[in-house]
């Protein structure tokens, strides 16, 4: 099976999209927990949550790749021209 076949498999895509949604809920709660712990000065909890956040981010990235929605948006292709600023009109 080719990569194209994988990302166009409706069932696989649907499953991956559901994993993305689930992981976003996890990320949401982790982000709130981290913020609350930081406000409370609880550095141990912040450190522990950071580990969970890294794991969650990794799972999200994997789910996005499986769903075919990962990767860099087509942006930033024009700004290197800044090094050759054209004359003012």
């Amino acid at each position, binding site marked *: 099976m080719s990569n194209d076949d994988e990302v166009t498999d409706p069932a696989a895509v649907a499953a991956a999209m559901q994993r993305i949604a689930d992981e976003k809920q996890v990320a*949401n709660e982790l982000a709130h927990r981290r913020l609350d712990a930081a406000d409370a000065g609880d550095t141990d909890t912040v450190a522990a949550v950071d580990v969970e956040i890294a794991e969650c981010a990794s799972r999200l990235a994997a789910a996005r790749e499986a769903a075919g929605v990962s990767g860099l948006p087509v*942006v930033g292709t024009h700004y290197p021209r800044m*090094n050759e600023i054209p004359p003012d009109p």
Partner: protein
Amino acid sequence: MADFILPGATAHGAVLATDLALISDNVGNINRIPYPTERTYHLTVPESTKNADHTSLGLVDWILPKPTGTSADYAAFQASLNAAPSGARYFAPQGIYTFTSIPGVPAPSEVHGAGKNPTTGTVFRMANGANLDAVLCDAGWLSLSGSPPAGAAVNYYDFVVDGNRTNQTSGAGHGLVTFGQGATIERIDARNTIGDGIRPSSGTQAGVAMTTSCNEIKVRWCTGFNCGGSAIHFAEFNTSAKLTDGFVNDCVINGNSNGDYGIRIDGAAGHVVSRNHVYAVKKSSYALYRFFGIRCTDNYGEGFGIHATPGTYCCFDLEAGGGLDGGMATISGNQAIGPITAPASGTILYGIAVQASSAVTEASCTITSNILRGRAGVGALSTAILIHNASSSSTFNVVEAHNVIDSAWDVPILIGLLTTVNLASTFNTGQARLVNTTFSATPTILPARVEAAGGLWTMTLTGNVTSMTMTAGRDGQRATFIFTQDATGSRTVAWPASFVNPAAPTSTANAVTAQTFVYVAAISKWVKT
């Protein structure tokens, strides 16, 4: 396009021979100077009448020595600056000046170049190995002991400051440093600096804080490229904020993945930051600290948060505090796009972060009509909007509405509140904001977080909720509670006493029960609708 200066009007409106004489050379030719790539008007005179005094036009023109590109440039340039009468309007001809020391421009005055094109304009460049703190500055920055004279601004127009960073090993390495109250900085290109590109500063070279205001500085139509600190940095040295009420408009910045910040304002009290573009910075695109009356509107940021050291980085980072009580921020019409390349592991990203970060009794802001586009799969936790009250004694009033948040952000809206955030949040789109709260037998519910979740609060009941706590909401705030029974069913909920007429969740296994309440401040109750 050639510039052509018409004579001043006489009392009776006629043009007299004496008027023409004021702007002509000694053989009767009208003075004009061609600037094929610039639109700026310059009143200049030929070399033969160099340093002519046109005081009857309210102007004193002073042509600076032509650049040689050698170590002789500094001494000749500084000597000519010092030789001009007060109030000079200097003109620096086209070419590359190579400075081995920092020229200080006397105030009040203006410095004009032949354009900000690095190849065809006027370029002030730090000499190889000069290791200076700046390329060019107000003379007072080098010598003042803390109090700039009133009305002593230097205005700068139409040139390039090049920090030549690859050939320096030390020094602060800023580009243009200025501090004059009301100064205008227009059409300057700052590039290749170790430090900041354009740096209005309320501190001297030695770091002594100014004791009088140097506010109302205008930075317009400037460009920044490859500046290591910030392309534009209003550097505040005085704890009571002397560098306020400035303008940064219509500037284009490319950090080239080397710059920490695009536009940074340390004391953003009364500033207007609008219609700018910032690309490819390592930390934050727009950093507006100690905001008091900031207007951050219609800006664009693309690519941020790629510093090798993991940290918290933002496209738009605004913080109230620093003793500026009653801070206000209008954050509207901006567009943000996430990192261009993958950030360091452990990095936390925010599209827009608005925080009350130190003791402010009350701060207020609007976050409206922004478009936030994330980047999926970067391996860092990304949140589109953070609203955070980190002060133990503050009230933070926020309207967050009509923003578009795309699906690439991990978390759409994050509300942090050590004490109070009064939030009205409506009509956002682009990503669901339902908060699915992990089961707790004793949940504490924060109204602002419910508001940020579209007015929804959900929980799957895997046990009985024995007590709930929910603090006072915004008057008229609506909150819908959705309980879902697990496969066992028959879980119960003990509603808070402040809830009027709540119903028990349907007991059937997997049943879903939704109830909506509205907060009525007059009776301090959440009333079922």
